[in-house]
């Protein structure tokens, strides 16, 4: 009889969110750590990149300083999962987007310097940067998936009842598409 009670309790608790909500939260934590890790990886590449470009394109000072200051802005913001709110998320994304655009400008400028483009060091850094950008995309997508799972658990019954009684987690912010207007007004290709 006792065994039966324990069993029923177990079944009740496993489906109510006692297990699934913390598991989902751990997943969110891990994915968020990965996102930050990849962004950090990108900012670690920048000093080397700037140095190499400087050697060939010294009069592109403006673009280079823009990258350095955008990097400084981006590395300033480090967020723990508990600190994630729509507000902080927005700041984080803004800083990283600033760095992204400064970097893409730098890469565009470097197209004008054939010697720089032929430099093995630069090519290596370019590969590393491309690889890191791709990792960022992958980690962001996985974060988005994990957040979806977590937010579903704490807002959709029956697991949401358990959350509102005991855990009291609030929804975690999602990544938003940056500059939605810009995306919608993407340049049209005409032939």
């Amino acid at each position, binding site marked *: 009889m006792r065994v039966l009670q324990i069993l029923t309790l177990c079944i009740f608790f496993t*489906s109510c969110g006692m297990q*699934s909500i913390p598991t989902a939260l751990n997943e969110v934590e891990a994915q968020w750590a990965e996102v930050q890790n990849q962004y950090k990886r990108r900012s670690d590449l920048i000093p080397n990149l700037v140095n190499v470009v400087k050697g060939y394109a010294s009069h592109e000072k403006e673009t280079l300083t823009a990258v350095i200051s955008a990097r400084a802005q981006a590395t300033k913001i480090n967020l723990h999962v508990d600190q994630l709110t729509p507000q902080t998320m927005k700041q984080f994304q803004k800083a990283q987007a600033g760095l992204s655009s400064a970097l893409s400008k730098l890469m565009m400028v470097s197209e004008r310097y054939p010697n720089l483009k032929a430099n093995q060091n630069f090519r*290596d850094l370019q*590969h590393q940067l491309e690889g*890191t950008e*791709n990792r960022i995309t*992958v980690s962001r997508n996985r974060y988005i998936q994990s957040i979806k799972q977590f937010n579903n658990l704490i807002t959709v019954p029956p697991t949401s009842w358990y959350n509102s009684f005991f855990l009291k987690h609030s929804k975690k912010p999602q990544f938003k598409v940056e500059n939605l207007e810009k995306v919608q007004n993407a340049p049209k290709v005409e032939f």
Partner: protein
Amino acid sequence: MMKRTIIFLYILFLSQLSFAKEIPSLTGPVIDEAGILSPTTKAAFERILRGFKKQYGPQIQLYIVKSLEDESLEGYSIKVVDKWKLGDEKKDDGLLFMISMKEKKMRLEVGQGLEGTLTDMKAGRIVDHLRSHFKKGEYEKGIYVGLNFIIKVLGGDIKNIPQVRKKHKGQNFGPFLIFALFILFSLFRRGHGTAFLLGSSYNSFGGGGFSSGGGDFGGWSGGGGGFSGGGASGSW
């Protein structure tokens, strides 16, 4: 309830994905949808990749597609490895060498456990090197050179890989014949717009024929390896 929600979400997810390029099932170390490899080369590559996995561990997969069907190369390749889960679950030592003929693009998708040895930089150098071969249309040679590089970087040597040969036995002709008929049939029917249906059955059939035909071959399936987007892409 939860399960039902998940299933519902899953179906919703699938229905949204229906326009995306379909990922085939993992039938062997070489999947050549574009048909650029001759049967002998394909068999040789398969021997190399199976031998390498047996001797050194990492699972290298060659996947050639005709077209990406409007998907991005990186977006598609990560979906492929997430489905196939190449490499060992603990070692994460899988690698996907993907080539898309129409877009003239290639990518090395490197498993998490191999990122330390085959860094983005090294993967990028390999891709840069192969570009010259692919530009000239030397695909088989380019792929061979590429595999050679990859194997070397991962600490192996293509010459040390034992050349396991498939035994030819009379009684193994049955599945082969049916398999050949299937190919003929699907080729014949391709023009009539039923290629999709036949294509999928042809794939699963190929998997069955493989394991029954090769006595000294194990199966070829992913072991649960994880990927996080490392590697390099390039176009030619």
